[in-house]
């Protein structure tokens, strides 16, 4: 056990049914945390994740702000206790901006940014009641450096990064820490969107990205989960409060600017 302090902690992971979210469900469960995963549809795949990890589920699309609030309340349970909120759910569509359809373009922003604002609004009172908590925000290098055909997703992910910095500053005194991860290219189903955008296969897109990364490979989702675990730990949440770490195999280098 790496982080004793995570034993018994209640952790809600939005978009916790696949990809990075699923990996985090596995990692947090292994640390003895009480994990609740959120996804849109309770299907066989989700039940498999629940079986594998022992996690419970609070289902619903955070696209609807009321659903977002309900999901948080369900995860927190009767004790209204949620120690860690991982803002990971993400929709992504890629098109040249000038050709984009308005509704589709905005939908990912409404999930990724507005949906999580609703989740965080719901969790703050509860975290204050219990003397603190940790919010972990999953951003993206599409947000920090931008990417071709990713204006909508990029906007939502850069908005999340700013949101996190300001939340951390505002809620410092309440012992609510807000830490962000900027993942590079991760081996998850979301890569299908990249592949479709480029008109190539999933394997081809993996190889394409890998070639351009210093470490010459894309990440395993567990590698992002590892950073999330640390950010939930006592020393990690102190060290990275109001800050972000770019976990990208050597790419998208920057010197961070903080408020």
């Amino acid at each position: 056990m790496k982080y004793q302090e995570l034993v018994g902690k209640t952790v809600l992971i939005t978009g916790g049914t696949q990809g990075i979210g699923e990996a985090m469900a596995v990692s947090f469960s292994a640390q003895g945390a009480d994990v609740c995963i959120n996804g849109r549809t309770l299907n066989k795949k989700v039940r498999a994740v629940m079986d594998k990890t022992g996690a419970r589920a609070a289902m619903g699309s955070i696209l609807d702000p009321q659903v977002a609030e309900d999901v948080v309340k369900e995860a927190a349970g009767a004790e209204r206790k949620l120690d860690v909120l991982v803002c990971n759910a993400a929709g992504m569509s890629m098109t040249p901006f000038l050709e984009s359809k308005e509704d589709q373009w905005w939908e990912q922003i409404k999930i990724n940014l507005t949906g999580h604002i609703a989740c965080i609004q719901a969790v703050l009172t509860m975290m204050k009641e219990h003397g603190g908590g940790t919010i972990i925000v999953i951003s993206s290098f599409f947000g920090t450096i931008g990417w071709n055909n990713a204006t909508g997703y990029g906007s939502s992910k850069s908005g999340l990064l700013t949101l996190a910095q300001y939340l951390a500053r505002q809620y410092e005194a309440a012992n609510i820490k807000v830490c962000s991860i900027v993942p590079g290219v991760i081996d998850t189903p979301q890569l299908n969107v990249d592949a479709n955008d480029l008109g190539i296969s999933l394997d081809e897109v993996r190889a394409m990205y890998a070639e351009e990364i210093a470490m010459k490979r894309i990440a395993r989702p567990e590698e992002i989960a590892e950073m999330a675990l640390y950010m939930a730990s006592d020393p990690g949440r102190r060290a990275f409060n109001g800050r972000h770490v770019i976990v990208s195999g050597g790419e998208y280098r920057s010197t961070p600017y903080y408020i």
Partner: protein
Amino acid sequence: MKTKTILICGCKGKVGKAAAQLFSSRGWHVAGLDLAGENADEHLDTYISCDIKKTEAVMKAVANLEDIHPLDVVFNAAGAELRTGFEDTAISHWEELLNTILGGSANICKAAGPYMVKRNAGKLLLLSSDYSKMPGDQILNAAAAGTLHGFAKSLGVELAPSNVLVNAVFAGVPFDLEGIAETVYFLADKDSYTAAQVVSICGKNQVGGGSK
């Protein structure tokens, strides 16, 4: 040398006014866009009343302006702010803010972009407010402004091959109006290789910033 044209969105605001005055004084043709019905600003050669949140209206407005003068530069200074804090703001009010800040920039870029791409020339400059030195709960104002960073960088990458330079002008609040106007002028008039960036500038009374 042909006169260049700038469209300033939010021309009735402090930043828009300052930019209009500067560009006009330097011989640019200045078109202004804002909500108000009429124009009383002597620095504007053309004025269009338009709600920047409304996609179709913005498309029409830009089409009308392009008929008069091709737009060399668009500077979107149309802004909005919430006075309520993070916990006291209804999601619908947040969405209204985002529709102005991100939606406004998205709409004007979508409208003006294609003309610039066709000409293989143009600049889209988007004002993003930097609240880092402001007291109080600016969480949602800052988050809305922050969406323009990922937007400008992504759109910047998309349009750069067409020599259309998209940048966010990330200006410290309280605004140094002269600093913003001059920087926008520099980017509009002189710069030719800054693209897909967040250009961060000092606010008033900040290190390096003006004290006027």
